[in-house]
């Protein structure tokens, strides 16, 4: 919204009215430079009193300004002669300028001003002003005034509006303000941002008793200005005079991209001069400052280090370039320019055949030039030639990002040639001036011999492993089981013989019967005797072969057999022996009877034993 201006028409009507002024009269008028103003703006009221004689001017009584605050006032006199109808007439004009700021929104009225002059009372007309909410009218609301900001010779605007620390200040605010500002609120990572802290005052400030700066995490910082004394610089803001004091100025180098906030600074002030009772103390804080740190643009060249941001130059020198073998030369690599020198990464010299390199030393030198941090980083490295002949130190290159050009650049040094000659006789090689520090780490060299590993599965994952583990207990259990079974199944031959003794005897008797059928009487009786003696041996355990008949009888009796059984046994054996060796060997019925007797004896022996 643009305020409507009325001042030009008023001045024109005033100048036309002047010739009509008679002596002893006063012309009083008032005008505002706008009929509409924002709540955070200012308005200039000009009251003009023109007298037609040289007498004492009347006393101007300003309106009470019920709806306005007076934030500034000035007065000027003008004397002039006007020729009207061929006769000169005198004019004395007193211009009173009052700067006002509204207290509320709405239609407000500037009450009439009053002058008592030569017994008369003169009044201006009331002026109606429409006040809109803050920010809806052009800040200041006043008509462009060629004299604005030049009353004290100080320009009104000293920085682009968005970065001016006082851009949001209007005289309706307090008398003491602390403002922080940055010169660039969208810097790249590593680019300098200048942060300044100002005090703006409409009262006298005698000293600063406290200054608490914000923590500046996420930035490299360098002090640019730290004034030891308060030096006032006049500023006019919306027609109101202030004194601006620079409290601190620092260079910030953002370390990472993204939104960043610089927290408020706190300031303690002593105001007033002289008398003890006119002094006072105040505390103020600045506003937080927001930064939107831009990441470095894409397309980083290989080997670019994020610390290499700025406007740099790179040079390399070697001294001396003619040297005897074993004598050191100094390679000096110098980067200088604008930017954060402490974060700068200079290129490293690689291995050069014929040169032994020692650890480099680095030194930095920083200065401030027109608010910009500049510096020089110097890397010095001692090189000792180990052979004669020409040796070239190759060109070194460094990638940088220049935020001014918003582009990456490659800085290159020129290659430097060394001429190494043989050392004069008797000259000892220079003593090592530094130790060769061998830091652990880094990738190891490759291996040249190949040894293969088998892809075999682990034994426990083989199908045979778990059965093999189960085999021993299973085997032992099997062995024990078989043994027990065998023991259970095993037959005692002694018992078997005893058990089968009767069967064997019966078989022999059947054999004897067969012999009898063939007519072999000797064999028949021998077989009967063998059946009985065999039974005695098997069943009774009596070997009759080596025994006399008495001993046999005694042995059988000892086995618990009855006397009759023993007697029958002995007689049977005797009969068999006799019949076997006697001619004829008896008749058939006798032989049948012998079989019957043998069977009876065996039965008795069997029973008796049982």
């Amino acid at each position, binding site marked *: 919204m643009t305020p409507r201006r009325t001042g030009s028409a008023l001045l024109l009507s005033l100048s036309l009215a002047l010739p009509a002024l008679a002596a002893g009269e006063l012309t009083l008028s008032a005008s505002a430079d706008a009929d509409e103003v924002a709540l955070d703006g200012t308005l200039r009221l000009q009251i003009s009193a023109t007298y037609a004689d040289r007498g004492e001017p009347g006393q101007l009584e300003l309106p009470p300004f019920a709806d306005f605050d007076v934030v500034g006032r000035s007065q000027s006199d003008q004397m002039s002669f006007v020729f009207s109808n061929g006769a000169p007439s005198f004019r004395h004009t007193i211009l009173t300028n009052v700067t006002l700021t509204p207290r509320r929104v709405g239609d407000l009225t500037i009450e009439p001003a009053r002058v008592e002059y030569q017994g008369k009372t003169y009044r201006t007309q009331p002026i109606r002003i429409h006040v809109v909410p803050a920010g809806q009218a052009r800040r200041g609301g006043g008509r462009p005034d060629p004299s604005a900001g030049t009353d004290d010779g100080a320009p009104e605007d000293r920085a682009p509006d968005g970065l001016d620390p006082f851009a949001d200040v209007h005289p309706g605010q307090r008398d003491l303000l602390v403002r922080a500002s940055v010169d660039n609120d969208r810097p790249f990572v590593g680019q300098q941002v200048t942060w300044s802290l100002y005090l703006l005052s409409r009262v006298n400030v005698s000293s600063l008793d406290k200054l608490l700066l914000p923590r500046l995490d996420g930035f490299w910082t360098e002090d640019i200005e730290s004034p030891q004394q308060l030096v006032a610089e006049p500023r006019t803001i919306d027609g109101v005079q202030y004194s601006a004091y620079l409290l601190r100025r620092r260079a910030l180098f953002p370390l990472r991209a993204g939104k960043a906030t610089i927290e408020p600074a706190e300031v303690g002030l002593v105001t007033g001069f002289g008398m003890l009772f006119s002094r006072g103390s105040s505390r103020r804080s600045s506003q937080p400052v927001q930064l939107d740190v831009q990441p470095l643009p894409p397309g980083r060249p290989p080997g670019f280090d994020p610390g290499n941001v700025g406007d740099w130059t790179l040079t390399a020198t070697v001294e001396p370039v003619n040297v005897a073998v074993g004598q050191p030369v100094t390679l000096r690599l110098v980067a200088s320019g604008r930017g954060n020198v402490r974060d700068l990464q200079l290129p490293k010299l690689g291995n050069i055949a014929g040169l032994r390199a020692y650890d480099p030393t680095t030194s930095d030198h920083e200065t401030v030039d027109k608010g910009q941090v500049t510096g020089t980083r110097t890397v010095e490295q001692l090189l000792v030639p180990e052979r004669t002949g020409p040796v070239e130190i190759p060109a070194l290159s460094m990638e940088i990002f220049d935020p001014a050009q918003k582009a990456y650049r490659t800085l290159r040094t020129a290659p430097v040639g060394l001429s190494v000659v043989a050392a004069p006789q008797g000259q000892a090689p220079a003593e090592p001036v530094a130790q060769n520090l061998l830091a652990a*780490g*880094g*990738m*190891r*060299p*490759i*291996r*040249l*011999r*190949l*040894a*293969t*590993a*088998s*892809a*075999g*599965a*682990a*034994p*426990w*994952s083989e199908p045979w*492993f778990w059965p*093999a*583990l189960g*085999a*021993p*207990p299973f*085997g*032992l259990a099997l*062995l*024990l089981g078989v043994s027990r079974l065998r023991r259970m199944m095993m037959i005692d031959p002694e018992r078997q013989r005893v058990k089968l003794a009767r069967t064997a005897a019966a078989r022999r008797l059947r054999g004897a019967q067969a012999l009898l059928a063939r007519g072999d009487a000797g064999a028949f009786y021998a077989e009967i005797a063998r059946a009985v003696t065999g039974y005695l041996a098997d069943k009774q355990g009596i070997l009759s072969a080596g025994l006399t008949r008495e001993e046999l009888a005694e042995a059988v009796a000892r086995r618990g057999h009855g006397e009759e059984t023993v007697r029958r046994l002995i007689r049977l054996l005797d009969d068999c022996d006799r019949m076997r060796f006697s001619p004829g060997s008896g008749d058939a019925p006798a032989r049948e009877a012998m079989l019957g007797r043998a069977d009876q004896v065996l039965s008795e022996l069997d029973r008796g034993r049982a």
Partner: protein
Amino acid sequence: MTLLLALLLAASDAQGMQLFADANAAYLSGDVARAIASYEALASEGVLSPQLETNLGSAYARQGKRGLAALHFERALFLDPGDDDARSDLVELRRGNVDRLEGELEEGGAETVARLLAPLPGAVAAIALLVLWSACWVLLGVRIARGGSRWASIAATGCFAALLLSALVTWGAAASRRMALQRAVVIAAAAPAREGPSDKSSSRFEVHEGTTARVEDEDGGFRRLKLANGLVGWVPKAAVELVVPPGWAGRGRPES
């Protein structure tokens, strides 16, 4: 026939050695791409060698392929857990990893224990376990058959103690091997870890090349990955590669 087979194997070994030497020469002359091609050719032929894997890892590291470099160093350690070069290179490589695991290790250091156990002679211990186990049972059988004797008791005690030791070593080696078979390395520059095995599932976090994790499951084109601090997500199968070499027992040959 056997002689012919032996001759063929020897000829194949000689060719492999020559290829390895050529790859090393290419690497040393700065032709890393050719060195990698030769090393990979050897690996695809089924050559399992910690030296081959270490060299391949170094070559990939030179090319800036951190994921593949880490994978081959891990493979070298899988083949030879005592390989100092591979271990050192892996530590150096991991210094530049994008992923930094925060929080306590959920595995309770099991990974570390497995690493410590890896050099144990598992195969020898398993065979010893088998022999000692059998001996214990034989001694028991003798005791049952012939009754106890002093020497038999001493022998049985010694045998049992050795059996316990070999069982422990075998268990440790088996645990380590089991974990090693699940180990995988992220080889893609970055991969989203999703809630489920689908591109439509929401992404929980992102993993970057060189990060080692455990593969817990597979489904379609995704693998369920568990990081050492317990973070779990499904990542595309092509983004992670198992450490166990293709063709190793328990893992098939890669699909051609």
